[in-house]
């Protein structure tokens, strides 16, 4: 099966910022991403868990798979939102099937 090179960008960000990040990505032309709930974790700001929360607490994870030449545009857009906030941005090399979808 033929595969194609892509970049997998994972952005873990505070839940109240979800809409803003989605809008920034859409504006930058990145319309394909998946948003996942994050159960809990630990980091520089301490431990946290999603259990029992009633407000918009906790974090969400955006997962985007894009062509390598579109990476900088995505990161520039994401940075305007995540700059000052708690979260993690990571980029990994990936292989995808059906390159025309990315």
């Amino acid at each position: 099966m033929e595969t194609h090179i892509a970049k997998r960008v994972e952005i873990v960000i505070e839940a109240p910022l979800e809409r803003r990040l989605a809008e920034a990505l859409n504006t930058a032309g990145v319309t394909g991403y998946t948003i996942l709930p994050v159960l809990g974790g630990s980091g520089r700001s301490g431990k946290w868990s999603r259990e029992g929360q009633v407000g918009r607490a906790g974090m969400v994870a955006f997962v985007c798979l894009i062509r390598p030449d579109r990476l900088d545009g995505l990161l520039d857009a994401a940075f305007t939102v995540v700059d000052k906030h708690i979260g993690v941005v990571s980029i990994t090399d990936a292989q995808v099937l059906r390159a025309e979808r990315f």
Partner: protein
Amino acid sequence: MNEILSLAGSNLVSPIILSFALGMAAALARSDLTIPEAVAKGMSIYLLFAIGFKGGVAVSAHGVDATLIMSLVAGLLLSFIMPLLAFAILRVLTGLTATDAAAVAAHYGSISIVTFVAATSVLQGRMIDAEGYMVAVAAVMEAPAILSALWLVARSGGSGRIEPGLMREILLNGSIVLLVGAFAIGAITGEKGLEEISAFIVSPFKGVLCLFLLDMGLIAGRGLRQSKGVLGAGAVGFAVLMPMIGSAIGLGLGMLVGLSLGGIVLLMVLAASASYIAVPAAMRVALPEANPAIYLTLSLGVTFPFNLTLGIPLYLAAAQIVTGG
């Protein structure tokens, strides 16, 4: 004095408080007891709907009067002014930065609807009536404190900002929409509407409140356990002192407006309570530099348990003494 102690004692052994204590103890003891997020949100929706609906029914029975308008204005004023006072006290008592102090101050200008619900439950247990529209007063007190806090940060040279969409998010926050919407439905349908759904929103209310407070206890306990070393004595002192100052201002305003004994107690509780749902989310957007461990632990880990256990009976006793009720 005996009356106050007896009231505080009976409040402490109520199922509501003991459920909260159980959650807190379980979290501090590192038990794996948890309430799933979806269940907690479901209970929160139920409580907001029930309290809003019952408030609306009470207004439909008694009608709208000048005291209602005055109470709403008093609530708005309290929410705008309390953060300024809280900020000044924090700057004296603690070494918090202007941004952290403003973020904490926003929480103390806004309200805790669960504390409000617990107070209405205590009043009902003592057969003390309160104005149904106090629910609407609670709703108007959610947001103005956020604006005051952002003004405080801007004044201190910080970068607090109201970006496009934030005000809409604050004002159309799910809990405000549900509370006000249920209030409107209650006001429109009145006693007849209440009769139709009372088996759902009246009888199970206290049981659901107990489970919800169990969850609040778990969250508060976890927060306290994970925030060791974050808070100084001054900050903890503030979290106990501020509710008492707020309640005293609420007492004065409640009397000025002409509320009943129950209404005064509820205004005191609203002024004494600190937000831990709507404001934290707004602060993460508007003041990302502020440390959430500080404001969440103070509001949920210190002030909320204080109000629930000692504050509510204390405010009730104070209101009874001052009003002669």
